[in-house]
């Protein structure tokens, strides 16, 4: 196996993910619509109820719509990571995962290629959302959209790896509803995506602590800081280390020696 083989295999995997994405136009529109509903509808109501103080990285008072943009970007990536997980469960049910796992390439590479392809799709969705948000007059620094790219890649890797671990645990598509209830919603609502942690602390110290420990909060903060040209080292460290742990978990969960014990083929 040489570098050309790896490159062609990566192109094949990425191309297939792209084709599947293009074949599922409703997936793209729902990925765009979901954050837009939050931005245009919910944010209008929340703005009246939620007072925001000046917190880093902001240097002045901001509107609630501006505050939640990084959270909604994170939400797009979170849902995309879970969508990739759903797609892997579908692949396992339909057998196409077997084809991937019986190719003469290391499993870590196959999973990484699938992961990167999913990240690329999520980044495309993020920029489509950002474009629509700008059209709606939301104040987003245009240069900040470029600055968030490394954060988007890292967040995508973390959330995609989490999706892979979940995919390895799920036997049927029907079980995916549990992921919505027990993974996506807690990760999203117990984070700094919709409200600052200090605001959460006013309601409950414990909930605020959970928010602080939630890696998704740090994914959002990484985007928030990068959007304003700032760097959040703590968030970077947490998102990076969580990505590594989730990815190693994904490689381990697709290891043949583990999968037969679980009574699964692919």
């Amino acid at each position, binding site marked *: *196996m*040489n570098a*050309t*083989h*790896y490159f*062609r*295999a990566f*192109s*094949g*995997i990425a*191309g*297939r993910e792209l*084709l*599947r994405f293009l*074949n599922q136009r409703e997936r793209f529109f729902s990925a765009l619509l979901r954050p837009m509903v939050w931005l245009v509808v919910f944010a209008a109501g929340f703005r009246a109820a939620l007072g925001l103080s000046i917190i880093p990285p902001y240097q002045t008072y901001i509107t609630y719509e501006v505050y939640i943009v990084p959270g909604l970007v994170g939400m797009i990536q979170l849902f995309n990571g879970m969508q990739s997980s759903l797609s892997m469960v579908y692949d396992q049910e*339909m*057998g*196409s995962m*077997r*084809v*991937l*796992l*019986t*190719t*003469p*390439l*290391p*499993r870590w590479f196959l999973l990484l290629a699938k992961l990167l392809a999913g990240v690329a799709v999520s980044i495309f969705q993020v920029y489509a959302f950002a474009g629509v948000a700008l059209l709606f007059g939301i104040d987003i620094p245009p240069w900040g959209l470029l600055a968030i790219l490394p954060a988007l890649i890292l967040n995508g890797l973390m959330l995609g790896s989490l999706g892979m671990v979940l995919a390895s645990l799920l036997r049927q598509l029907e079980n995916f509803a549990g992921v919505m209830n027990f993974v996506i919603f807690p990760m999203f609502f117990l984070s700094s995506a919709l409200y600052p942690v200090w605001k959460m602390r006013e309601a409950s110290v414990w909930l605020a602590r959970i928010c602080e420990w939630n890696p998704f909060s740090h994914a959002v903060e990484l985007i928030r800081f990068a959007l304003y040209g700032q760097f959040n080292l703590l968030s970077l460290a947490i998102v990076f280390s969580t990505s590594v742990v989730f990815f190693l978990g994904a490689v381990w969960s697709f290891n*043949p*020696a583990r*999968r*037969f014990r679980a*009574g699964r*083929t*692919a």
Partner: protein
Amino acid sequence: MEALRDSNHRPPLSVAGLTFNYGPRRALDDVAFDVRGRETVILLGPNGAGKTTLFSLISGLFAPHAGSISICGKTLSKAGASALDPLGIVFQAQTLDLDLTVRQNLRYFCALHGMSRAAADRRIGEELTRLKMADRIDEKIRALNGGHRRRVEIARAVAHNPKILLLDEPTVGLDVPTRRELIADLHARAADSGVALLWATHLIDEVAETDKVIVLHKGKVARIGTPADLRAATGTPNLDAAFAALTAGEAA
């Protein structure tokens, strides 16, 4: 001559002492056999004999508890996934992406095997023509019937010119004429291209008189030989009766 010596010393597939358990249940017990170049080896066993488990081990989806698998001289447990390169696999269950076209499915597979786009398109064209599917190349898999989907799976399995083709009950669910065509095509491939076939089935009529037959029963190799050897060993007049005798009447 060199190639012949190499093929004699390194069979495309060599399985030794293969043992595998599902929890406390032993699915394969000390299974050993070789598949040589141009050979068609029929893995004959009733449902639950361990055929699919054996294929999952050979294709690296499972890891064995004991024993070794060697593909063209490379031991799977030591060489890892790279040992799978000479394998072409037709799985028992359908494994095509229903929402992609025939061409997209085949190109994807060729890319996974490191083939260039030009080489992939050439091989895809050759195989689809051989399997009388060239005119369906841009149709989505979802639009194809079971027989056509199976042909696409065979085209996919051979697109990278494998040295050994694993076929896990490839004719299940097909009508009689399609079955006949596929059986004839697969036998012809072994003769034409030198690819070795390991073909799991429980259907006796898929066995040709020249094939090597491995009778697998309750996870163990009950007998290896040509149909004539099996008849002679069991003192039976035909392969059906020989198979029934070797599997204690459990033949399908």
